[in-house]
């Protein structure tokens, strides 16, 4: 049974149709990506899930209508959204603090994970003292430590340069294999989607529809150099082609 299921979800801002008709599902322990052009409505989808906005259609969680939006998801926004005025340790415990967990307890939960996230020794640093990659790791730690049922990641590596990004993707893939989180990732980087996901939903330009659902048959651990890389490359080219020449009709001009 799927953890999260969306059925015919629609959303318009004033007169602007943003989400036309989105149906998708995420199984328990599955890593699913949403890929789509800029301005399609990807972040809007997360706004619906986190309760920041309300739309039409059904949203089910474990088969029940999704009502208490602040309970099921740990949300990681585009960029890292670390608070510059909080030390790394206090940034990572933020989610627990908001849940009402006592500071001591929250720290005790976070500290053992610091090493695994490559942040040991940086607890007392401010975000500005860390590199982009380390900041992303801190943001991810803040997200996963909330121990919610599911991760929502909105272009978590959007602000990084291509090289740091590749390294972070490798690291995230490792972490995911280890923890088997249920995760929904938004991205507009085709390679990232292919590298990380079990399944990919490709969205059209606004108003967003699901253009294609693609299962990624690559074995894990994923390897960006081996033979599977050839297969990945082909898949990437295919998806890029879907995005650049959308099937149904009216082409999406990139401007």
């Amino acid at each position, binding site marked *: 049974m799927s953890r999260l299921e969306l059925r015919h979800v629609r959303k318009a801002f004033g007169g602007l149709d943003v989400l036309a008709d989105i149906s998708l599902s995420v199984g328990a322990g599955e890593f699913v990506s949403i890929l789509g052009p800029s301005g399609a409505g990807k972040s809007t989808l997360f*706004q619906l899930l*986190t*309760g*920041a906005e309300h739309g039409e259609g059904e949203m089910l969680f474990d088969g029940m209508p999704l009502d208490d*939006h*602040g*309970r099921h*998801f740990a*949300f*990681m*926004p*585009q*960029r890292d*959204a670390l*608070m*510059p*005025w909080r030390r790394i340790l206090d940034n990572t415990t*933020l*989610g627990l603090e*908001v*849940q009402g967990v006592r500071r001591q307890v929250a720290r005790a939960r976070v500290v053992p994970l610091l090493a695994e996230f490559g942040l040991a020794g940086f607890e007392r640093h*401010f*975000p*500005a*003292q860390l590199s982009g990659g380390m900041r992303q790791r801190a943001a991810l730690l803040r997200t996963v430590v*909330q121990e919610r049922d599911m991760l*929502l990641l909105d272009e978590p590596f959007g602000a990084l340069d291509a090289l740091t990004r590749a390294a972070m993707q490798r690291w995230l893939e490792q972490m995911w294999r280890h923890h088997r989180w249920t995760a929904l990732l938004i991205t507009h980087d085709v390679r990232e989607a292919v590298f990380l996901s079990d399944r990919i939903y490709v969205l059209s330009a606004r108003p967003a529809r699901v253009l294609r659902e693609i299962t990624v048959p690559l074995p894990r651990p994923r390897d960006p150099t081996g033979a599977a890389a050839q297969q990945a490359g082909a898949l990437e080219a295919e998806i890029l082609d879907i995005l650049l020449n959308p099937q149904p009709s009216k082409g999406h001009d990139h401007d």
Partner: protein
Amino acid sequence: MSVGLLLVAWELYANYSGIKPTILPAPSRVFEQATLNREALIDNAVPTIRATLIGFACSLGAAFALSMLVDFFQPLRRALFPVFIVSQTLPLVAIAPLVVLWFGFGLTPKIMLVALVTFFPMLVALVQGYEATEVEIGQMLRAMGAGRWRVFVLARLPSALPYFFAGLRISITYAVVGAIFAEYAGAAKGLGIYMLNAKNNFRPDLVLAAVGVSAALTLILFGLTALLQRLAMPWERIGRQPAGKGPGR
């Protein structure tokens, strides 16, 4: 340094241009007289400092309370801001004497005037500061289950700090000038009264000495706010300043 040069030029001009010391006393004389009358100057600086600080504290408190209100109820902003803008256009000289009629001679009218001068800049700084909160931080907090009040305390308030301090530096200058002005409207003691008395007793040197004291006072308060900022915002000091982060000076 350049301030020193200016003083030297003034000294030379005062001594050699033949200008009367009743019109422009030399800085050396001003300094000498300031030293001679230091007790009186200090004695008069105290009430001015008190009015400045209390007035400024009230203004801060009011600005803070109102900024929160405005932040929580956005429509209030549109309703109240025109009033405050108009309040900034009122010439203090004309208002000051009326304030004494309304509030008498005590500290109150001074505090009111200092607050009038500094309230709006602080309010604007705070409101601007709250708005500078990263949208995504707010969104993330709400997704964590935080209410409006939690979001305010955890995110909006700290985000406003750089703006707050920029506003503080500007306002503190006006606060001193405002307090001196308020004394003109009726006070037993204070730098403003000291200036007035010195003038009516034909002592321009003492007027300038008091001006010097008030300038020094302002600079000290200015320096203190800078110090306070360093203490209150360690992350700006330690971390590399990301470009275009807060409002500059």
